[in-house]
């Protein structure tokens, strides 16, 4: 094909589009190839994006991006079979300064793609890249079916399923113990009901993180007219509900179904999440004329309470753009890793590297929520023999743990989250 581009980017997810955005701003001729029929048609995420990264790079985004609600209320809930223990934090700031917002990723990515195209890059959809063309270890472009497309640089932004990287032996298949499956349902509830039932006014939104012996981890995000509910499923835990039924455990839990039970389910989706954090980071996310960005490179941060992918993806896209610019001016490709290391991303991943271990400790889903529910149940049950907090804790943890062990475990958890 006569057409030649400076950079081919494989995947129109947050990382791929961000890389395109920063490169095209630097004057590169960029094309993004996306296998979905539209940007976002293959992406799944919980529901929240952090604002700081958009404030930095996308002027005017607050008025034009498809924001659903600004997160004002953060809630952590432990769901037992019937009881619930919750901790809630309400941010006391004016709404336009909020740190994060809820959105639908498919819509958000369409907006991002539009911005990228306005800058002059091409985003071609319905294009599945079958392989990266290598010539003596040097990436020369990609093959799509029978067509080949060449470029000076290739950026692999293929997401959590690293099919291309594995095909070219640039990365091993991830271990089953390092993945979870995000399983999500979008429910139409209507604005009024959402605001009334979740205690929200106007543009305010709620982000809720859930722990439960019934389904493990989960989340609820409020949108304008919709609610996204999801489960973070750990496939290796034995004797649990099958993945195909697990979302119903959440939707039909008495405390959840009274909020959303009369809503209309609109979409069911699922995607794996790479959970290993710092350990999963590619040691060499680059090679001769190619770079790896976003989830594919392992740039996903799980702080225990929030999974952050989109902001890191955008940040890594910026660094990849910077790196390609400098490589094209003669610097060594390792500059990409140097830039990543100097940035906050790697520091953050390092800081939270204990999290996967905590989260893979099944007790935090199975034992702790029950203990918490029992402690509070004991405290708030009123009969003729009231008990103290200490007695309550002892009663709840009693036969299973020593008090000291319980406290040590909790301290370990808190330290690593």
């Amino acid at each position: 094909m006569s057409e030649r581009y400076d950079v081919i980017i494989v995947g129109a997810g947050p990382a791929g589009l961000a890389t395109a955005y920063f490169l095209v701003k630097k004057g590169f001729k960029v094309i993004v190839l996306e296998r979905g029929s539209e940007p976002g048609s293959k992406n799944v995420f919980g529901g929240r994006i952090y604002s700081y990264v958009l404030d930095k790079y996308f002027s005017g985004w607050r008025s034009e991006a498809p924001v659903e609600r600004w997160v004002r209320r953060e809630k952590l809930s432990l769901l037992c079979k019937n009881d619930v223990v919750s901790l809630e934090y309400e941010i006391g700031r004016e709404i336009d300064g909020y740190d994060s917002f809820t959105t639908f990723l498919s819509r958000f990515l369409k907006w991002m793609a539009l911005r990228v195209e306005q800058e002059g890059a091409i985003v071609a959809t319905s294009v599945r890249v079958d392989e990266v063309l290598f010539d003596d270890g040097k990436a020369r472009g990609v093959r799509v079916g029978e067509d080949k497309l060449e470029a000076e640089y290739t950026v692999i932004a293929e997401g959590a399923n690293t099919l291309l990287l594995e095909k070219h032996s640039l990365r091993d298949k991830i271990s089953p113990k390092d993945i979870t499956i995000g399983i999500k349902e979008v429910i139409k509830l209507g604005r009024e009901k959402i605001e009334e039932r979740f205690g929200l006014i106007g543009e305010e939104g709620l982000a809720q993180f859930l722990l439960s012996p019934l389904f493990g981890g989960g989340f609820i995000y409020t949108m304008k007219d919709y609610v996204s509910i999801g489960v973070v499923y750990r496939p290796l835990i034995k004797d649990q509900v099958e993945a195909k039924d697990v979302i119903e455990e959440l939707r039909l839990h008495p405390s959840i179904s009274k909020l959303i039970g009369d809503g209309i389910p609109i979409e069911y989706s699922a995607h794996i999440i790479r959970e290993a954090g710092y350990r999963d980071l590619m040691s060499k996310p680059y090679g001769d004329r190619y770079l790896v960005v976003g989830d594919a490179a392992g740039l996903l941060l799980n702080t225990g309470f929030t999974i952050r992918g989109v902001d890191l993806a955008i940040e890594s896209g910026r660094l990849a753009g910077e790196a390609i610019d400098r490589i094209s001016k003669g610097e060594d490709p390792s500059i990409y890793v140097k830039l990543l290391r100097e940035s906050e991303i790697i520091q953050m991943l390092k800081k939270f590297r204990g999290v996967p271990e905590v989260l893979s400790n099944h007790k935090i889903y199975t034992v702790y929520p029950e203990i918490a529910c029992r402690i509070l149940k004991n405290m708030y049950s009123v009969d003729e023999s009231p008990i103290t907090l200490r007695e309550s804790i002892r009663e709840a943890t009693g036969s299973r743990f020593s008090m000291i062990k319980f406290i040590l475990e909790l301290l370990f958890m808190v330290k690593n989250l």
Partner: protein
Amino acid sequence: MKKMTVEERLTLTKFEVHSKPHITLDLQKCRRCDLKLCISSCPAGLYTLDESGEVKFTYEGCLECGACRIICPEGSISWSYPIGGFGVQYKFG
């Protein structure tokens, strides 16, 4: 409130199914596996056991999450993405 079956839930999501499957299963390898984690971990419930104890699957409701490929201990599931424009079409994501 009524529990929705996974088949009902899959009707919520749009699929543009290509006539050529994007998943293939190597039954030889599959028979060696006792765990059959693909069955419990597929969020679309696409893997089932037939009467003779063999794994059967369909690809038409595949959410393209990628779990089965990673979880299969024998590597019997080969999985590629459906060709461009086909497969699951998330409106919300």
